[in-house]
């Protein structure tokens, strides 16, 4: 597991827990993001907290707006950006 994936999974679990009161299992990569226990507000919070953790927000920094559909899309987007950022 890459460090980026690990941080995303931990932060995801924290956000879901703060919204629903219970800690979720790690979602499969093909799980639809908006059906992974996060609503759009929860997803927005996750992105903000990850920016604090990583020091970058790939959504703001990428040239074109990107909309991940699955949890795997989301993690790969951060990993690709993290690799580019070096």
């Amino acid at each position, binding site marked *: 597991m890459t460090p980026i994936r690990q941080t995303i999974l931990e932060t995801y679990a924290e956000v879901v827990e703060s919204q629903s009161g219970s800690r979720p299992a790690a979602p499969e990569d093909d799980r639809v993001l908006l059906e992974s226990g996060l609503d*759009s507000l929860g997803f927005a919070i996750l992105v903000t907290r990850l920016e604090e953790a990583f020091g970058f927000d790939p959504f703001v920094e990428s040239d074109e707006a990107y909309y991940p559909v699955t949890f795997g899309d989301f993690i790969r987007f951060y990993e690709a950006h993290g690799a580019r950022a070096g």
Partner: protein
Amino acid sequence: MLRAALRTRPLDSPALFYKGQTIPAAALTDTAYGGRVALRLDDPLALARAIIALDGTAERVLLLPDLPQETIATLMAQAGIDQLIRDSSELTAGHSDRPTEWILATSGTTGVPKLVRHIIASLTRMISASGWQEGQRWGLLYDMTRFAGLQVLLQALLGGASLILTRGDDPLPRRVAELAEAGCTALSATPTLWRKLMMTPGAETLPLQQITLGGEIVDADSLSALHRRYPVARLTHIYASTEAGAAFSVTDGQAGFPARYLDNPPKGIALAIREDRLFVRNPLVDPAYLGGEKHFADAEGFVDTGDSVIVTGDRVFFAGREDGCINVGGNKVHPEEVEAVLLSHPDVALARVSARRNPITGQLVVADIVPAGTPGDPAALRRSIEVHCAAMLAPFKRPALIRLVADLDIGASGKLSRTLPGSAS
């Protein structure tokens, strides 16, 4: 007006679609007699039918969103309503011929909403009426009791299209599937909802020719992402509010609006920029809240929209709310309200709430906190503040991020500076 428009269509042409049902134009000729009625119908099909049956026959129709019972009673009294319709069987058959006043509630997030009186002309001034357009189908994702939702209904039925209804409490993937099933070619939503749609499987199959955005600042990134996803669709963003009515639309695919609108405004309205805020004059909207003394328009009829604007070359861009209001996915948050809650926590000395740009909700609430004393365990303090906020604030108002800082910048005025690096919308 609605029934007259439907009469010009082929009798068997589909007017409404809802969950596999198709309602032809010929089935929408009933009229209901109403003096001053309020509609509080959860079923979108029943609500659409009631609106069509009451248009041009009721004196006044108050469209009620799902609100607490006591709020409904207050609003009904303000609007002088005689009858509350909670089930379509309560509508009385009958007819009269008069212009109907449509009363809409503002979508404020605190206190009792205010009521604004519209007539069909003020609601339809941006709609180009058209005869039957075979195959053109608007999807409805908004609540029909709100200005934006009523606009979509009127646009579809007066513009010669069919209307596909969906239920607000259904999950978005199901609503998208129903829109796709019924062949939705035109859709109106807020930028936040469009961004959600782009993350929803199945939305890519919608054969969209018309994309309409409104209700929040429309940014260039979202417009270009929509254009890539739906290359043949025309992109329109609409500037409208319950108070100003539908003011103008922009169809060139760019954020903001052309500065020439200030001198040559579209279709009968006037625009002005005063103290960096946009003012709109729409003579068709009654310039006072119903049941109240307060006029929201000035002596010349201009309404202060509260939206800050910046003119750059030949373009006017929106720069957020003048009152510092944060817009979280279409929900307004007053920083002062959140700061007051934070300051009521015993270990918080100073708090500043600001907006953080966000790819999904447009903006999010973040908080800088100066702790009272030195916190032993910063993580525990943050969690304690989160629990405190969760008990007192709606989810969209709670800070998504709590930063503990040593000090806050206080401006020369002695007020908290609301501009933080990176906090611009």
